[in-house]
């Protein structure tokens, strides 16, 4: 939307970014400086080389023509080459120094960028933590118990339906069946009883006292022996 109407959207650049950029700019300046010195070194080395080779040529000429004045020129070339080499030495040292500061600055940049990454990691952890808490809230015990109860109810109901559908009997039916079976059994029993000969109603000959005496005798005996 913001880009449609050209409204300035909220900048996503933080002060941290600015700091990093500034460091990086310093680094670039150093790098460029390095390049410059390297180029200078190269060209001056070339120059020194050329001076020396020219010097040789001049020298040759001198020895050929025996022209004394060129001798002066000769020395000039030498000292110039020497000066250039001295300059080169200095610049090499400078280059080393640059290298060292470049190293420092690059380390610092790395640290800065790393802190940013760390901050992101912590942020990520925070988000994860919040999400976990939320998820845990969802899982409170009461809720789960209720859920389980409901599930159980559901399962019971389902079982009932299955039983009905598959023709199995409910417990009430079962009772009815049981009752009917019992009834049948009693009837059968009755019938069987009916078929049995009637129990004679005559009294049996009285033999009971006899057995009583017999039973009592040994006990008496035992008692006597103990006396």
């Amino acid at each position, binding site marked *: 939307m913001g880009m449609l109407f050209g409204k300035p959207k909220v900048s996503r650049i933080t002060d941290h970014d600015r700091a990093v950029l500034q460091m990086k700019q310093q680094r670039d300046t150093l*790098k460029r400086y390095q390049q410059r010195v390297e180029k200078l070194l190269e060209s001056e080395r070339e120059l020194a080389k050329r001076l020396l080779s020219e010097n040789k040529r001049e020298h040759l000429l001198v020895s050929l023509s025996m022209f004394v004045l060129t001798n002066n020129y000769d020395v000039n070339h030498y000292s110039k080459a020497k000066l250039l080499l001295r300059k080169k030495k200095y610049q090499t040292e400078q280059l080393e120094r640059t290298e060292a500061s470049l190293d420092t600055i690059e380390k610092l940049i790395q640290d800065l960028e790393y802190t940013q990454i760390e901050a992101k990691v912590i942020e990520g952890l925070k988000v994860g933590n919040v999400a976990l808490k939320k998820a845990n809230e969802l899982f409170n015990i009461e809720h789960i118990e209720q859920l389980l109860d409901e599930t159980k109810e559901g399962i019971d109901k389902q079982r009932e339906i299955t039983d009905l559908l598959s023709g199995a009997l409910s417990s009430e039916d079962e009772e009815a069946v049981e009752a009917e079976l019992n009834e049948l059994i009693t009837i059968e029993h009755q019938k069987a009883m009916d078929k049995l000969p009637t129990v004679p109603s005559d009294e049996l000959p009285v033999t009971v006292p006899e057995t009583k005496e017999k039973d009592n005798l040994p006990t008496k005996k035992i008692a006597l022996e103990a006396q």
Partner: protein
Amino acid sequence: MADIQWPWQYSFPPFFTIQPNVETRRKQLDAWRTLVLDYCRTQKVSVIDVREGDLLPVFNNTAISRKLSPEAIMTVLGVLQKTGNAEPLDKTRTRWNIYWHTLDEWASIVYKWAQDNAMLNTVCTFYEIASDSGDLNGIDDAVLTKALKVLERRQQAEILTLEGGSGVKFFS
């Protein structure tokens, strides 16, 4: 600087005069378009000044002593403009920016660079981008800025300016 591979047309004198015949002209301008873009890409020429056109070997073949007139250069640049490969920098249309990649392409290339170098969500300087060894090496600051503006519109980057120069932050 790499040696330039000139097409055969470059040594063909009539190539340096805009042809009147419509069909021929279309082919000619097409060849010019390719030639200029190739030339600019290999030589990393991002700005062409029409008045100084004959300083560029592409418009001035000294071997056959033929050069493209400023008007003709203007015509060629006009063709480039139509495809998004050139853009006049002033009202008189004398200075032109040449984009051997269109700005949209540049934007994608820069963004891909940022992705490949894990530069997303961090800032980097223009110098950093331009010192890349690939396609982006030596990219013109103005062209880069324009490409980044495209990315800004795509919400993939944001340019930030400090006194020491500009930088850009890429977003994922």
